[in-house]
């Protein structure tokens, strides 16, 4: 074998190895991470903050009830209520805000170090993905502030959507309002009929009929809107090359927000 042939064979061998390597590496690598949020919530700092908040809330509630009793007008009551809510919100922000910010920073830091494009809640992961809970817990519990990631997460193949925002789009809102109005009317009709019912079986029959009608109405009014929304989300997901779209509540960090696109498409 001449040196030339040896070199060629070596190069081809290297080629074969390199061609096979990404697939092999790829099977162990995922850009989807997950974290057990409940485990973070159980950390002493969070539990202590929760206990302190509960105690303070109880004390504030007692003071609130006394003030409500002493209030002489509905305007006074409203003022007392607003004051109470603001105080609660301030305490909550003061106690939990820094902890949440620290946890979020820790998740971002771990995600950046592990090259994750998205971190979701553990509950939606059936298998695979990278569990970063321990790393996050260590960082949150450790001394000093977690290191801020230099870059924002890279674009992710996993989309997420704020379903609350979708509910505010005119078409969905109109359908929901229509259904709510129907339900209120139906409840009034039902109340009137129930007051005339002579026995338990008549009562059950009336309730059953009412629920069946509500169910049917819900399917008729909301069903097409829900289906259309899902189609739009899927279309947006496919257009943006996303693997799937999850609810915002399941996404912890990163991911691709498709809410604006979907809202715009639904208008």
């Amino acid at each position: 074998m001449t040196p030339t042939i040896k070199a060629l064979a070596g190069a081809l061998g290297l080629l074969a190895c390199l061609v096979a390597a990404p697939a092999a590496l790829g099977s162990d690598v995922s850009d989807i991470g997950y974290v057990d949020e409940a485990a973070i919530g159980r950390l002493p700092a969070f539990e202590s903050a929760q206990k302190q908040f509960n105690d303070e809330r109880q004390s504030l509630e007692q003071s609130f009830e006394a003030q409500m009793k002493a209030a002489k007008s509905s305007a006074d009551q409203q003022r007392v209520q607003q004051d109470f809510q603001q105080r609660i919100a301030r305490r909550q922000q003061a106690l939990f805000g820094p902890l949440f910010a620290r946890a979020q920073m820790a998740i971002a830091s771990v995600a950046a170090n592990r090259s994750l494009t998205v971190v979701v809640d553990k509950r939606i992961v059936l298998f695979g993905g990278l569990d970063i809970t321990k790393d996050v817990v260590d960082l949150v519990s450790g001394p000093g502030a977690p290191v801020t990631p230099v870059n924002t997460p890279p674009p992710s193949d996993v989309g997420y959507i704020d379903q609350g925002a979708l509910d505010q789009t005119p078409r969905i809102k109109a359908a929901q309002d229509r259904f709510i109005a129907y339900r209120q009317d139906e409840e009034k009709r039902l109340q009137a009929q129930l007051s005339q019912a002579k026995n338990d079986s008549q009562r059950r029959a009336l309730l059953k009929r009412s629920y069946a009608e509500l169910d049917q109405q819900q399917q008729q009014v909301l069903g097409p809107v829900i289906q259309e929304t899902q189609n739009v989300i899927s279309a947006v997901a496919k257009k943006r090359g996303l693997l799937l779209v999850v609810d915002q509540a399941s996404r912890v960090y990163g991911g691709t927000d498709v809410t604006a696109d979907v809202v715009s498409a639904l208008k």
Partner: protein
Amino acid sequence: MRRVLLAIALTMTLAACAKSGGAPAQGPSYTGVGYVRVEDAVRRHPLYAQLKQYDEEIALLQGAGVPAPPVDAAELARREAELQHSLTAAAADAKAELGRLQQHYEQQEHEAVAAALKAAGAAPGGAGGAGVVSGVASDFQRQAKEVDQRAQQSFDAYRDQVIAQDRAQLAAAAKRLADEADRKYRDKEHGLSSAEAQLAQELAQESAPQRLELRTKLQNLALDQAARKALEDQLQALDQADADQVAELRNRDQKALGAYQSELQGDVQSKMQAYSAQVHRDTNAKLEQRAGLERDAIQKQVRALAPQVSRQLDGFELSKMPPPLRARVESIHRDFLNRYQADAQGELDRFDKTRQQLSARYAALHGAVGAADAQTAKEVARLQHDRDQLYAKIVDQVESRARAIGQRRGLKVVLGGAIAAGTGVDLTDDVERDLEKSHA
């Protein structure tokens, strides 16, 4: 030549790497990630019908906000009528027994007085004869009966009043507890929402200088495209980082709210159960106390009738009789009157006891309304628990099938929280088919 071959080999290697390695390409060909639309799969699960059945049963019990009595109104009225009938029958029995006693003692007294008059040489049936005694006994019975009837009416009115108050009290308590829970929930929701808004505001304030700097730089028209994009990316990254923190807080808040709502519902149920039991105990105690007072009052009033006997006897001019005969007749009369009073009192006590028992049953019947509200809540909680278990079982089956199918198909990751399909591998149909087969 060697260099050329090596260059070709390296070029081919790099080309191959570029094609199949590196970052996973997006699009339908990328099959590393699968997902299952859990809610859709649950809706097509063979046990979904049972889940719906639970929902329907719970909704029926909860009555769409209409409080469901333990028995319907007609049944309640029927049971009340039964009790009233029993009470009327007991009163009629007592009346008949009193009449029988009266006749019995009148006859005996008549014979005794006749014998005494005969022995004294006077004619039976005179002014001081058995008619006088009979009239006194008759008056006593009438008056005792009136006393008893007044007591019964008073007790019935009191009982109805107490029960009506208790029912109103229970309804008010249920409303108060529900309102309180609702207020607490709204407070918490509002508090959390304010905290989210405040966090967003603080974050915006914190990053404001940085944003301003970036925006100022972006206003520089001389920026080349790459530099402009880098600045825009930084600006977007700032927005994203802020949004992430707020979203993180919101996610936690939503979970906290869900848990808080369950906690409040459990709290309302247990408080209502305890309160209902307490009200029921109080009702019975009040009725027992009132029954005791009524009984004492009857006895006092019946005893108070006795002195009237002497006055009535005086009205019949027994004083005109010869003293020994008068003493004899009075003695006979008092003896029979005492015996009649004792027996009549015994009969009234028996009737009183029956009335108390019937009243207790009546109170229990109405008290059951409050207790049954708690019972209904308990039943709803039990059904909800069973429903949750079934739901968890269905979800578990869906997820484990998705895991198995995903692994079989060599996927890297399978997620269960998908709400819409993308270009990933949708395992939902496969899971549904698998579940149908296993339940066939």
